[in-house]
């Protein structure tokens, strides 16, 4: 019990027989069975207790909630927590998980496996949310003759919203954060590998609950779930609340793990001033995830209690206050937009430095930008509530604090622009997406000023101007960065090179489709088209048709991406990738593609700044017995 049997670097016995596809599904099947057992137990005990108290035994929302509260640990224990972790709490030895390809469907503690699990899961959800967006644009092609009725539209819009929010929260942080933070800081794994696996395996129940909610009438309150609607609508709302509370737990544990990892696991010499900028982005983000996510969880818990436990947080007739929900909700959900975009900023700066072949301009100011956003993130929430009837004394202070955010954001921007200035730009696909991110986020940021200012926001609130603005920041900012990161790190993660031609086609189609779609939305928003409504005034048909057509164009732009991935990974026509195809200096490129278990052949020692391209004599890292970065491009396999 005192030895850690999970250590990835230990010699592993070869599997007795080659894995079969069916055996790969065993952990998930076990998780599902124990989830069902747990659900039956929780719901059954609830019914018995109610019957004993002389109440109607079955109360859907209460029974479901208690059932789920038992089903969730059942799922986790079944899928691998028990044999790899829980046995130890009872003084028994823990077992190893599979080490072959089956580990991708198992409770693996390897940060690289978990990163891939996050990426695949959230790309799947991204395309699900995208398909829902296509449905929304089909609906809005015309104010009449629509495929969905009002209720179905609200459900589709709500599901699109929360699925994409989940993608925005977890794709870059969960995917690239897990895979690359340990590599970038020269660590062998995260600080708490099993907690890391737990964070990931909390995600599948979230997706299942969100989809299952449609069988319970869905929920029509949007991803924001404002009461009083969310206290009164169909029971699908309860599933939504349970799903997002679970997702919040995953996010909190992930943030905790990143913080401890970055604080304690850096290689010798990896001082705070030498930390790769992407790691700084994840560091600032993780504080927000750790501290603020609880407020969303608390707000959803209050709605849940109002529905199943007879409390009255938000029912005005019995002394509740719906506005309280908005305060608590936005106290998380505005900082959450920095969870979306700060890892994206970090990734963009990372790519821009490597592909400009220059030291990152004003590195310290960029770090100050991340920390400044972190510091201000907690005092800007009420700019979502300028027209909600909150106390007037809050308006001016929140206006000022919101606009202050543009200062740290500007520092990050200046770092990007200063790095590009006089750089030797290498316009490969990752760089194109990073440049696209800078362009898009500028539009997203500038239009945000009108929503931060009370006088303009009063007119623009709840119009498509807001929709266009936040899509510019989230898709234009984070999702473009996600693709920059994907193409940048694809050779490292898969050991194969993607097709540059297809990747560039993807970029240009997506860039044009995205900008055309959402620029048009600013226009209809300025002309008063309200968001979250299944139809609109007939005189806005023209621009809506244009938006929809460009929206479909944006949807189609992912086909080259999908073909590129399929061709590279499944059809196997791709050439193997070298260890360092970009001749980059950071640590993840100083090991094989993909990296071996525990990442490096020797523990790196850091001796200089990661981005000092062209600085004579500069060295970032030394791998004892191997060499220094910059001197090797191929030799570390």
């Amino acid at each position: 019990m005192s030895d850690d049997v999970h250590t990835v670097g230990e010699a592993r016995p070869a599997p007795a027989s080659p894995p079969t596809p069916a055996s790969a599904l065993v952990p998930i099947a076990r998780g599902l069975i124990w989830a069902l057992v747990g659900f039956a137990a929780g719901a059954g005990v609830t019914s018995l207790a109610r019957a004993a108290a002389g109440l109607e035994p079955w109360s859907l929302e209460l029974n479901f909630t208690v059932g789920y509260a038992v089903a969730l640990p059942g799922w986790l224990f079944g899928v691998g927590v028990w044999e790899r972790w829980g046995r130890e709490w009872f003084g028994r030895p823990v077992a190893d998980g599979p080490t072959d390809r089956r580990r991708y469907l198992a409770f693996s503690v390897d940060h690289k496996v978990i990163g891939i699990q996050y990426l695949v899961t959230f790309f799947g959800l991204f395309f699900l949310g995208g398909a829902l967006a296509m449905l929304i644009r089909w609906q809005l092609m015309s104010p009449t003759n629509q495929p969905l009725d009002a209720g179905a539209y609200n459900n589709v819009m709500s599901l699109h919203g929360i699925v994409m929010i989940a993608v925005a929260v977890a794709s870059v942080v969960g995917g690239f954060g897990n895979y690359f933070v340990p590599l970038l800081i020269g660590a062998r794994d995260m600080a708490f590998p099993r907690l890391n696996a737990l964070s990931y395996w909390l995600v599948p129940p979230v997706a299942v609950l969100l989809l299952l909610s449609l069988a319970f009438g869905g929920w029509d309150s949007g991803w924001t779930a404002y009461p009083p609607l969310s206290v009164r609508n169909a029971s699908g709302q309860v599933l939504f609340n349970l799903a997002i509370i679970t997702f919040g737990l995953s996010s909190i544990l992930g943030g905790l793990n990143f913080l401890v990892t970055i604080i304690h696991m850096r290689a010798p010499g990896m001082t705070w001033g030498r930390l790769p900028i992407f790691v700084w982005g994840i560091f600032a983000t993780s504080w927000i995830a750790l501290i603020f996510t609880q407020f969303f969880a608390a707000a959803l818990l209050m709605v849940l209690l109002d529905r199943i436990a007879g409390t009255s947080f938000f029912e005005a007739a019995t002394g509740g206050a719906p506005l309280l929900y908005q305060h608590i909700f936005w106290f998380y959900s505005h900082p959450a937009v920095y969870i979306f975009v700060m890892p994206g900023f970090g990734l963009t700066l990372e790519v821009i430095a490597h592909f400009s072949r220059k030291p990152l301009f004003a590195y310290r100011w960029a770090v100050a930008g991340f920390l400044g956003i972190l510091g201000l993130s907690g005092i800007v929430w009420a700019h979502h509530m300028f027209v909600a009837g909150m106390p007037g004394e809050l308006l001016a202070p929140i206006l000022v604090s919101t606009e202050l955010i543009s200062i740290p954001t500007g520092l990050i921007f200046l770092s990007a622009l200063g790095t590009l200035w006089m750089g030797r730009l290498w316009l490969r696909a990752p760089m194109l997406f990073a440049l696209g991110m800078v362009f898009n986020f500028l539009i997203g940021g500038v239009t945000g000023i009108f929503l931060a200012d009370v006088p303009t926001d009063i007119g623009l609130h709840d119009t498509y101007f807001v929709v266009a603005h936040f899509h510019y920041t989230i898709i234009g900012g984070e999702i473009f960065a996600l693709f920059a990161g994907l193409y940048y790190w694809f050779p490292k993660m898969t050991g194969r090179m993607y097709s540059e031609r297809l990747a560039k086609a993807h970029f240009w189609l997506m860039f044009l489709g995205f900008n055309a779609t959402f620029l048009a939305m600013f226009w209809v928003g300025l002309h008063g088209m309200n968001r979250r409504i299944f139809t609109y005034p007939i005189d806005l048909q023209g621009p809506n048709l244009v938006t929809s057509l460009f929206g479909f164009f944006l949807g189609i732009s992912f086909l080259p991406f999908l073909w590129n991935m399929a061709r590279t990974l499944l059809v196997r026509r791709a050439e193997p990738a070298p260890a360092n195809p970009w001749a980059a200096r950071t640590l993840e490129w100083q090991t094989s593609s993909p990296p071996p278990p525990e990442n490096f052949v020797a523990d790196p020692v850091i001796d200089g700044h990661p981005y000092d391209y062209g600085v004579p004599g500069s060295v970032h890292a030394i791998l004892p017995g191997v060499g220094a970065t910059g001197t090797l491009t191929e030799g570390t396999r």
Partner: protein
Amino acid sequence: MTALTRPAGGGGAGAALMVHEAHPPHPAKPAIDRLGLWLFIASESMLFLTLAVARFYLAGLDRPEEVNLPLGLTLTVDLLLSSLLSYRAVTKIRTGDRPGFLAALAATIVLGVLFIGGVAMEWASAEFGPGTPYGTAFFSMTGLHVSHLLSGLVVLVLVYRLGRRGSFSADDHWGVTAAVRYWTFVDAMWLLVVFPTLYLL
């Protein structure tokens, strides 16, 4: 859950350190575990903060006459005692006194169970329902606290079982320390947030 991970650590890092001692890249595992637990506590306390804010937002400084202050005080004393005894358990295992450690831990657990019984009495005898502003705050805050207390009790019972089977020693007692630290956190939330918010103000 972090509480019990010490011997096997969170995974790779601890053991890796032992394997490659030529280049120890990372600090000792306890520092990592301690920070992890503190961050978890910081995060979790935000839930209590939210409900405390909600209490004043909904009910202002109102407090119904029927609130059972003597029972609340008794519960507070009970929790304070259990905190002291849980610290005694840590002190005992630090000196290698296993019987003393187990006795103090058992007493902690008993006081924790008594506390839950007290809250159940309080709920059963409350003359206000959950549907009023104060009732909303009262039942949700005490409910949140009891659910944390229950999770703490589960951890303490597991630690007790492990202790009886010979786990933990004077040099290796992070599991005990972590469980007690979490227990102290739950007690502190009662003492600093739930009790003053619901019974005193």
